[in-house]
């Protein structure tokens, strides 16, 4: 059997296995692993214990970031700091709806921009933003859509865009010149998202809103609330701008330092037992994300081992450029859904060379692809940011209704990205070294 036939057969079996197991288990994580195992079996690899175990490590660092970021934010909420911030925002900006929405959008962009992971934005400020949005009169599905869209935009935003970084590393180009070419489209799409989702929302009266919020904990002042966030910002900026004088702390430890700072500024001095409960709750809350990272790693490893990865990559990359334009709005997000950041390595890097060969500005091209990949974070099998947004916001409707609410800004982002891909020369003025 030719490699094409064999890998196509394996791919078909894996798709069938995914559909069946999703229906049977109602756990996307387990479904991914079952899909991987079926793929290995059909491809004649038997039970690939080695590939399984090795695969669990593929996105381990991200799993660490998710757990620790969540511990920090839950601690932050626990001491009442989050509540204090929400109240402060409502009191100061209640009358200026659009300004408040823009401030919330910017707030959402920061954690993801610094970490490169949209999930971190959703986890760190998504809850706060959702609370305020609700009070501003946005419907539940729109709240979830807002948090999701700003979440994926934050991952695209500079200074850290992991997709662009991985593509740059694969193509041996420095990760330089991306700041404006990422920031400008992100701000445009963010502004559109705010306008589109905020349109028609009628805020409640200030008094009603404040009455609906939990009471402000005694002694929780704004400066106390600001300290842990300031520490996070200082550590993140220090890592980038004082890299030669500071040791490498890494994001997980940074978040734990911030969590410890939060415990230190707690005016109530909660007992250790309470903090242990918070940690346990956090682990349960964040577990689906951690499990997704572990499971998608297994899937990616098996996709590579069986050659299905190659089949997907060659089928897309070998298209004529016009075919890439026509299909990338579907292929790139789907690749992200199944491969995570691996999409940038597997499709992104070869595509950089393809576009370079026809004289396109590769910095713009990489920026555009990073946006297309980001769109896939609401798609199966992993749908990582989409699920996190829904859970953080506490959205009770179906996943389909959430996708529907997201559709328009999602498409606008896709169109902006496609435009950058098709006429990269027009955006080249934004590339500043």
């Amino acid at each position, binding site marked *: 059997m030719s490699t094409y036939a064999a890998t196509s057969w394996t791919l078909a079996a894996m798709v069938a296995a995914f559909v069946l197991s999703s229906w049977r288990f109602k756990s996307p994580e387990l479904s991914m692993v079952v899909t991987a195992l079926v793929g290995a079996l059909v491809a004649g690899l038997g039970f690939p214990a080695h590939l399984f175990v090795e695969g669990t490590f593929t996105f381990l660092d991200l799993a660490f970031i998710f757990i620790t970021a969540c511990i920090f934010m839950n601690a932050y909420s626990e001491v009442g700091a989050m509540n204090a911030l929400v109240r402060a925002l409502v009191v100061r900006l209640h009358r200026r709806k659009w300004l408040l929405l823009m401030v919330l959008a910017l707030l959402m962009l920061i954690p993801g921009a610094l970490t490169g992971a949209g999930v971190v934005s959703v986890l760190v400020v998504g809850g706060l933003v959702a609370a305020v949005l609700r009070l501003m009169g946005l419907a539940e599905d729109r709240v979830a859509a807002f948090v999701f869209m700003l979440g994926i935009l934050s991952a695209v935003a500079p200074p850290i865009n992991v997709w662009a970084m991985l593509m740059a590393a694969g193509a041996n180009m420095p990760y*330089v010149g991306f700041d404006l070419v990422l920031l400008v489209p992100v701000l445009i799409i963010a502004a559109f998202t705010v306008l589109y989702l905020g349109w028609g929302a009628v805020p409640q009266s200030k008094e009603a809103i404040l009455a609906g919020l939990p009471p402000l904990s005694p002694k929780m002042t704004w400066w106390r609330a600001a300290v842990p966030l300031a520490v996070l910002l200082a550590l993140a900026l220090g890592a980038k701008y004082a890299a030669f004088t500071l040791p490498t702390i890494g994001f997980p430890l940074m978040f734990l330092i911030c969590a410890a700072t939060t415990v230190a500024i707690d005016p109530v001095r909660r007992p250790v037992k309470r903090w242990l409960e918070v940690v346990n709750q956090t682990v349960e809350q964040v577990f689906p994300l951690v499990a997704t990272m572990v499971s998608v790693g297994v899937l990616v490893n098996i996709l590579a081992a069986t050659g299905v990865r190659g089949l997907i990559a060659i089928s897309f990359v070998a298209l004529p450029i016009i075919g890439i334009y026509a299909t990338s709005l579907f292929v790139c997000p789907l690749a992200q859904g199944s491969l995570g950041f691996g999409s940038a390595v597997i499709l992104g890097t070869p595509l950089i060379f393809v576009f370079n*060969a026809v*004289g396109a500005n*590769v*910095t713009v091209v990489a920026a555009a692809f990073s946006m297309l990949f980001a769109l896939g974070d609401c798609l199966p099998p992993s749908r990582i940011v989409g699920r996190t947004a829904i859970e953080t916001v506490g959205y009770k409707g179906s996943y389909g209704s959430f996708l529907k609410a997201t559709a328009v800004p999602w498409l606008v982002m896709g169109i902006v990205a496609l435009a950058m891909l098709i006429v990269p020369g027009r955006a080249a003025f934004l590339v500043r*070294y």
Partner: protein
Amino acid sequence: MNVARTCGVAGVVVLLAVVSASAAISGAPPVKGQQPLLITNAGQGPGAKMSRLLVQRTGAVADFDYLAEPQPADLKTKPYKTLMVVLGSTAKGLGASGITIDQEIDRLNAMIAEAKKLKLQIVGVLLEGKTRRGKPGGADERCIDAIAPFADYLVVKKDGNEDGRFDAIAKKSGAPLTFIDDAMDFSEVVKAMYAK
């Protein structure tokens, strides 16, 4: 070091002679070159420096200079008679570490316009053959577009013309077109161009 270098160069000349014994040149016979000669490149690929090396080692050209990125004014710093432009972009260094091909093409257009004004003999060289050929719109092809149609003489490594692109350019412009089998054969072309 100069003595050492001279010895080294002598050694390579011997080697060149051995290699060039099997040299293969075809197509139009080399045209007469003039001096002073200015060697430069289109696309910042390594070809021009390779040409400089070969020209230097033939010893056939007494008065020549090399400039990586000449501006129009640089063509007047000396009464140059021949401008040798080696075609091909650099493949190393994408994004921030590479060249901006639009700027490079602008420079080349200005350089060629000035060369035409000064009535310089323009020699277009594709020394590395298909290594520096690419897809339409790519950096290599745009460099060829910017230079080759204006050349008075073209020297092309044979595998760079598999699609007949240089045949078509030469036919249209009327420039003689010489083929070489290997980059090393360019030495023979230079010797013939500058034979006394």
